[in-house]
């Protein structure tokens, strides 16, 4: 904890140049995106496993709190993606380092150029939604719906601490992870390359995902009855979020469920990239304690595993008529309740 506090306060006090601030923004935006990723993958898996809860989740996404968060999320993803390109470029061309400060400014400008029209379109969806006299969940309901994640987070942290303790007992206790060992060297080398290669693959996938789900249509259109289901040419007849997902995932192009394949690629890459990034951040600030450092690694492994199991499970699952009916009922309850 002290190492985190010192880094934060001294980063504010040290007169570093623009590269330092790029690093701060890269970390914060990455952490923000990983947090949302957890909520989003778990919520989306409910479309298959627990349709009623999925309707509620989408209703919370349509609340003002999440609308503000959505703008922040899109900004974070765009900045992280563009600055990531800058990092990758100078990793492979270190002799051009003199241009890194200029590149950091270019990153900021490009981010703003991308965000300006995107925010305008997103704001258009927000206006359309509120002009249609919508029923919006009250803030207390929105927060209560997120509260269910808290036990999950706590359970993951406790499990990580227990695993780290067991690991320590078995390996004899000391086993500082910073020690020189060839195994560690090989895996760090792999992850370093993975972060860079995966970022280039994620970039088109995540920009496509954001364009389809947040810009071309809004989160509000997921539950618009009679509205197109973006990317399918089909109509959401019941106006439930469950039917929206069913229409997308059940669409076959040449016998292939293209959106399931797309979402699987995005899920696998983003989960691996995101949780390895989280591991970098957590292990940076826990070097003083082998116990906490191992726990950080276990926490990231548990988080990634959970999201992959839920996400892949949902992508392999079926959403049938009964699920849509459950969605309709849940929606009626939500509307009656608010």
């Amino acid at each position: 904890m002290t190492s985190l506090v010192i880094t934060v306060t001294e980063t504010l006090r040290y007169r570093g140049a623009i590269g330092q601030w790029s690093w701060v923004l890269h970390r914060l935006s990455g952490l923000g995106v990983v947090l949302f990723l957890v909520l989003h993958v778990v919520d989306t898996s409910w479309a298959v496993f627990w349709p009623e809860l999925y309707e509620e989740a989408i209703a919370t996404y349509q609340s003002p709190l999440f609308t503000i968060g959505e703008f922040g999320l899109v900004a974070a993803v765009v900045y992280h993606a563009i600055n990531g390109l800058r990092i990758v470029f100078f990793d492979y061309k270190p002799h051009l380092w003199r241009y890194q400060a200029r590149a950091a400014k270019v990153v900021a400008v490009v981010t703003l150029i991308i965000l300006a029209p995107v925010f305008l379109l997103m704001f258009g969806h927000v206006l359309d939604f509120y002009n249609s006299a919508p029923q919006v969940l009250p803030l207390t309901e929105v927060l209560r719906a997120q509260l269910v994640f808290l036990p999950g987070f706590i359970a993951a942290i406790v499990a990580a601490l227990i695993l780290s303790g067991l690991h320590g007992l078995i390996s004899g206790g000391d086993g500082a992870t910073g020690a020189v060992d060839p195994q560690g060297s090989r895996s760090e080398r792999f992850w370093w390359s993975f972060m860079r290669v995966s970022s280039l693959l994620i970039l088109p996938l995540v920009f496509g995902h954001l364009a389809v789900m947040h810009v071309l249509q809004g989160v509000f259109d997921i539950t618009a009855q009679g509205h197109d289901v973006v990317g399918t040419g089909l109509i959401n007849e019941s106006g439930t979020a469950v039917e929206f997902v069913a229409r997308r995932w059940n669409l076959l192009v040449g016998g292939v469920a293209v959106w399931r394949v797309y979402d699987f690629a995005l899920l696998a890459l983003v989960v691996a990239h995101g949780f390895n990034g989280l591991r970098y951040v957590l292990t940076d600030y826990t070097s003083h304690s082998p116990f906490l450092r191992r726990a950080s690694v276990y926490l990231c492994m548990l988080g990634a595993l959970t999201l992959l199991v839920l996400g892949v499970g949902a992508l392999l699952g079926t959403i049938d008529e009964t699920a849509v009916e459950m969605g309709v009922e849940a929606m009626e309850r939500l509307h009656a309740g608010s």
Partner: protein
Amino acid sequence: MDISFRIRRYNPEAGRPKPYWQEFALNDVEPTQRVLELLHRVKWEQDGTLAFRRSCSSGICGSDAMRINGRNALACKLLARDVGPKIQVEPILGLRVIKDLIVDMEPFLAHYRQVLPWFVNDGPLPADGRERLQTQEDKDLVTDSTNCILCAACTTSCPSFWANGEYVGPAAIVQAHRFLFDTRDTGDDARLEALGAPDGVWRCRTIFNCTPACPRGIEVTRAIGEVKLAVRKGATAGIIDPATIKQQH
């Protein structure tokens, strides 16, 4: 010019267990005087208990690295006129403060030793039994990294090092660079092993604080980048393009 000097003090033996700021006023300072000379004036004229390291006073020995007005530098290379009438001096960060501006350099030097910073070649001596000669082009590959004076200004400007003292740090990586890319040296494997560890080069997040902190103008972040590539591909993979090496004077 008159200078107001703010110095971070720490002297637990004198009954002050916590660090504190102390201000000193200096009159008739020549704009061309160096911050080190101003520290001398404080010590000699106002407070003999002020403690700091210095040896050559000429930017060669690397003992007076400190954080001056928020950025790491050598006190003996910064002129009063370049720092302004308000000067704030504090110890470099990430190493334990022993007294005032003096820090414990041992963890820093331990990282330095970790990269085997000496010439390794067990092969037979050249025919004349004397020097292992190299071409000017080969020498140019490492000229920049030979300039390092181990002052720790780069390593202690690095947020990764502040957070994690196990990180080998920029200076040790520059020193490794000097031998990795020395065409006569054969110790690459052991060095790359140490540098490729979880707290080796990979903790560098290309924040670029280290490069402007170097009082010798070494392209520190570039050297770290080249060492990262060497860990992946081997140091003999033609990582440094000779055409991109800056001219040394």
